[in-house]
């Protein structure tokens, strides 16, 4: 009587493409470990500041998880009055978040190379840090998977920091909260330095933007960023033209 052997169990074999994606995701996650302290600390600071301004813990957590942008949240809280100025809030979010628009402009060719067009909802997670890491990861095959790996840790750290800030709010005094107002500037200054390392383009537009925004900021603080970006753009147009002609 012939013996019937049981059918072989199907083995889950990862395709090389999937393995490459997974490896890129893992690299994005690991590259973010050292700097995940930034979103964590900002999460703590935001929740602490929000509670000290009269938001409930639930409201502050909703802001934290649905907006996920420290600079927008801090700027929004500055104009959070009764009655709530919805239009001013919208303009503030657009103005403060405009640098993410400029960062988003650079991403399509980077994501498209092997990953195709990403789901647009994933761009909710675009921050200074994962943009910086993703644009600099030249040797990573799947940059979108890398972006998601980095994002996983950044968002988790931000939410964890927010929860901790909620828990610690009563233990942090107002002087310490006020002292951390320069954290945003320190963070962005460090991002500029990281961006500058290995940057192949001209840095003259950055300098022009800094000078213009500093000058305008003395007289019209709300126009400073816009003035800087416009000046930087015009300078970039001239410098790029000059590069092209060489």
């Amino acid at each position, binding site marked *: 009587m012939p013996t019937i052997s049981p059918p072989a169990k199907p083995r889950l074999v990862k395709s090389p493409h999937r393995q490459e994606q997974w490896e890129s995701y893992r690299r994005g996650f690991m590259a973010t470990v050292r*700097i995940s*302290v*930034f979103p964590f600390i900002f999460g703590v600071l935001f929740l602490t500041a929000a509670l000290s301004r009269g*938001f409930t813990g639930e409201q502050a957590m*909703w802001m934290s998880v*649905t907006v996920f942008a420290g600079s927008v*949240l801090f700027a*929004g809280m500055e104009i*959070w009055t009764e009655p709530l100025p*919805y239009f001013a809030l*919208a303009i503030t*979010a*657009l103005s403060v*978040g405009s*640098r993410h628009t*400029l*960062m*988003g*402009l*650079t*991403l399509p*060719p980077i994501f498209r190379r092997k990953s195709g067009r990403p789901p*647009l909802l994933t*761009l909710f997670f675009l921050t200074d840090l994962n943009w910086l890491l993703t644009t600099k990861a030249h040797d990573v095959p799947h940059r979108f998977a890398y972006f998601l790996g980095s994002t996983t840790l950044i968002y988790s750290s931000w939410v964890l920091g927010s929860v901790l800030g909620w828990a610690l709010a009563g233990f942090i005094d107002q002087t310490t909260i006020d*002292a951390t*107002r*320069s954290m945003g*500037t*320190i963070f*962005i*200054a*460090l991002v500029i330095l*990281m*961006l*500058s390392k290995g*940057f192949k*383009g*001209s840095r003259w*537009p*950055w300098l022009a*933007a*800094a000078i*213009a*925004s*500093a000058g*305008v*900021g*003395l007289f019209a*603080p709300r126009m*400073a*960023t816009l003035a*800087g*970006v416009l*000046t*930087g*753009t015009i300078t*970039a147009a001239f*410098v790029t*033209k000059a590069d*092209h002609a060489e």
Partner: protein
Amino acid sequence: MPSEYATYYGIAVLAVMTYLTRVTGYLIGSRIPEESRLYRIIQTLPGCALSAVVAPSLVRGTPLDTAAVIAAAAVFHFSGQILTALLTGLAISVAGSHWMGM
């Protein structure tokens, strides 16, 4: 503080507008060829935006704020340690505020 409903509407406004800033750049950038001069210009713009955020803060900030930023930048420049740089800046801000009352 505004009412409960008003607060949640305000949060929704911030969330939607912030998402729009994130997705709009990607959608516009999708239509720009990578080989074009415009794309090369675009690559310098995030640096311009970041510089335009930092510079006014440095000019308008207190000497303590400026010192914290410069110290953090110096530590990062010479050591390459991002965490050490951040903690240096934070320590100067917090310690300075408590001791000097700034």
